[in-house]
């Protein structure tokens, strides 16, 4: 543990130079979806690629700006600074415009498109101990753990320091699955199973958003990767796979009798709808509506009363429930731990 953090600190030091170049522009470590705050082996290699490319880009940009500035300073002279006229300038155009880019681009190509791509690529089938299946819907993510009966939505739990093979697909239009601090993104496309690697090296919550425009509520389609110790993950998965505890409350009745059960599934009950997300353990999730609202009593009331207010156009209609029924329903849902 301590050896790991020392290594990380050393890595940080190596980044000092490029970071200082961008300090006025980028507050390092800001935000939760920061590509440059990597929390996985893969993302660390990609962000290193970025820092090197960015440094090179600033140098190239500086060269052109200096040349333009030189043109302005020497606007009354028609030679190059060190002498030489058209022939020398043409040679420089060929050198800087053809030779130098060929060398630099070849280097970049080999590094990024041969090595980094391999190191961050999706694992082969059967090479990992954990597989997850993520399905995009308008507008939420359905998450299944093959081999168990666990089904959840928008919150993808993984154990840390474990390579997880994520298979992405879609139930309707194209979406794109992306967790910026962990790895590259992959589009989920009808008729295809696209694969990506997820692994996190520290416990934490890593949010991401659908990256491919998918219609009216593309903006509200968040996914959160929750990385935790292997032990806690196993416990969570076991709980998630279990059906909901039997419940005879007024809230459960409202859920079964009203339209709710037509669209949502609660395993262990008669609610088997497949339109909206599975709600079997809804009470243990942190967000409502794929990241629109935090999951607490007040916000859940607000959501069920008028889902079209916070997420206009989503598939859930506002039901005209009495206040008592509404509160009972919320109590029931919050109890689904």
């Amino acid at each position, binding site marked *: 543990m301590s050896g790991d953090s020392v290594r990380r600190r050393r890595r940080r030091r190596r980044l000092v130079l490029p970071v200082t170049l961008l300090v006025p522009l980028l507050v390092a470590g800001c935000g939760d979806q920061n590509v440059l705050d990597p929390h996985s082996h893969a993302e660390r290699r990609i962000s290193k690629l970025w820092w090197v490319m960015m440094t090179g880009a600033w140098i190239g940009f500086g060269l052109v700006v200096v*040349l333009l500035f030189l043109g302005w300073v020497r606007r009354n002279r028609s030679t190059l600074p060190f002498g030489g006229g058209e022939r020398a300038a043409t040679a420089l155009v060929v050198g800087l415009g053809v030779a130098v880019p060929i060398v630099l681009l070849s280097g970049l190509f080999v590094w990024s498109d041969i090595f980094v791509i391999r190191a961050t690529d999706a694992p082969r089938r059967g090479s990992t101990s954990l597989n997850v299946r993520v399905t995009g819907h308008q507008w939420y993510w359905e998450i299944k753990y093959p081999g168990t009966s666990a089904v959840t939505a928008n919150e993808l739990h993984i154990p840390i320091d474990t390579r997880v093979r994520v298979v992405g697909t879609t139930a309707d239009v194209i979406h794109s699955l992306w967790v910026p601090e962990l790895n590259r993104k992959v589009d989920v496309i009808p008729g295809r199973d696209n694969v990506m690697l997820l692994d996190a090296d520290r416990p934490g919550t890593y949010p991401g958003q659908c990256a491919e425009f998918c219609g009216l509520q593309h903006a509200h389609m968040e996914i959160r990767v929750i990385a935790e110790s292997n032990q806690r993950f196993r416990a969570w998965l076991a709980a998630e796979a279990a059906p909901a505890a039997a419940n005879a409350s007024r809230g459960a009745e409202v859920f079964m009798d009203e339209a709710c059960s037509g669209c949502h599934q609660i395993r262990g009950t008669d609610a088997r709808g497949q339109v909206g997300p599975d709600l079997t353990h809804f009470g243990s999730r942190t967000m409502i509506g794929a990241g629109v609202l935090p999951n607490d009593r007040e916000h859940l009331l607000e959501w069920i009363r008028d889902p079209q207010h916070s997420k206009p156009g989503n598939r859930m209609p506002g039901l005209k429930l009495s206040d008592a029924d509404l509160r009972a329903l919320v109590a029931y849902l919050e109890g689904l731990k």
Partner: protein
Amino acid sequence: MAVDVVAPSLERRIERLDRIWRERPGLLGWLTTVDHKRIGLLYFFTTLAFFAAGGIEALLIRTQLAGPNERVLGPETYNQLMTMHGVTMIFLFVIPMTTGAFGNYLVPLMIGARDMAFPRLNALSYWLFLGSGIFIYLGLFMHRGPNCGWFCYTPLNTRTYDPGPNVDFYALGLIFNGLATTAGALNFIVTIFKLRAPGMSLNRMPLFIFAMLAVSLSLIFALPSLTMDLVFLELQRKAGFHFFDVAHGGDPLLWQHLFWLFGHPEVYIIVLPAFGIATSIIPTFTQRKMIAFPLVALAELLVAFIGFGVWAHHMFATGLPTITLIAFAAASMMVVIPSTIQVFAWTFTVVLGRPEFRAPLLFIGGFIVFFVIGGLSGIMFAAIPFNQVTTDTYFVVAHFHFIIFGAAVFPILGGMYYWFPKVTGRLYHERAAQLSFWLTFLGTALTFFPMHIVGLLGMTRRVYAYSPHLGWDAYNLSETIGAFILTAGLLLIFGNLLWSRFRGTLSGPDPFFGGTLEWATSSPPPEYNFPVVPKVTSPYPNWDRADREEDARRLVAGTFVLDEGHETPASTVRDGYLDEVLSMPPESPWPVVVALCVALLFTSLLLSHVVVACVFGGLALLALAAWHTREPEES
């Protein structure tokens, strides 16, 4: 004594040319015109109107995104505005502005011709373009505008997910628009190959003409791919076909491949004319020829060619096989080389010359700076893992706005100042123009640079709202402020041009001592462009004083005046030897009639009235037949 004898006959010749080339005055004259300069102006004002529309859409978008969870626009309105902003700026502003307005006005002038090769086809392209623009905007005005993003991926664009006419406005509108663009591109190719003044062999063609040639060839080969894609889509939406439908053996990636096989060459179609404008302005304001001229000409053509081999880098996250990704990444790196050649050719020409930093050259300086920023972030997309991280984020939005606004629109703005004296005969206000440059420069940087950062902070494209806790607020606010500064700069430019149109000092034919032929004739040029077919012996003919004096002698002697009829010379394709004298068609009402029939045809298709559409198609064909009947010769 001798002068007295010659002068009346010279005057009589000019008078005859005036009479032969004069068009009908008034509004009717604008409807029937075939003069490339008037058509160019029609294009100019129309595309300017679309630029204003696209700009207002951009400001609304930026206002909505100024802070987190704003509620200025709802999601449906936002999506329509976002889509229309892209469609407008690409299809209704940049391409018609560079090819339709600048190309139309300048290509015949620069090659010493009296009109485009097919003047009536030229008129038809304009009217079709106008029709397609109005067609697409009708949707927005009914709040049924395209709402699926400018690349409108399937299956989101199918009737299952987008049942209204929104996508039909997009698909039919772009097919319609493609007709106009294709007609224009064909016209440019033939004009550039055949109507160059005798003596202008291919190697003496101005670089602007090379750029327009490259653009026109690209359009001819790229557009069919888009058109096919849109036809497939409409067949699926309206006639139950299954091109993109997985359940029936179709493939949604087919849409993306066909779209980007058009879409990437499109990027070069957008910037190449801008390169052409840069290579016109730089030599004039540095008073020296472009260095590495043949390399730059070759680079312009190469960019257009290699641009056809890189489309899949827009699809790196779709799960294509790794080997495919690597091949396209390599091609994407190759396409960098022609651009670096040009960047250094421009900058070293400035270093080597004696630059006078007036407004047009300032805009080209801004263009180089922004093109280099956009180009460098573009190279990064050839690094596959980084591409898969940043694709569909604001990093990409930053990149392509530096290319489209910085590298395409800046030369357009500089070009407006540069050729303003040619078109109006008056000079723009220099101090105000320089101020307008600094405003637009600052505005552009402030609007688009923070998008890189917010993209790296995880902001994805096309979101109508975002949460406050993600650290994006300050960047988004600065982008919005930048957008309004940019708008102020643009308003100052157009205010300047409008004021100068009436109050500017008279410029004379050649206020900047330009090197190309458009500066060899009066400002504004007469209907027949040149009273005498100009002599050309180099790529900068207007700097060859002896040749211009030869023109004056020819005019006096009456050789190469071609005042016997509505005529322009044609020359051989490669060497530019005089080939024949072409009789050009006079003005005609038929192009606008054909375009009207085509507009009604597309409207009927939109309403799914196939029979009515066939009727209008038949009427369009009849109008085309009428177009080809010969009018009685004017004496």
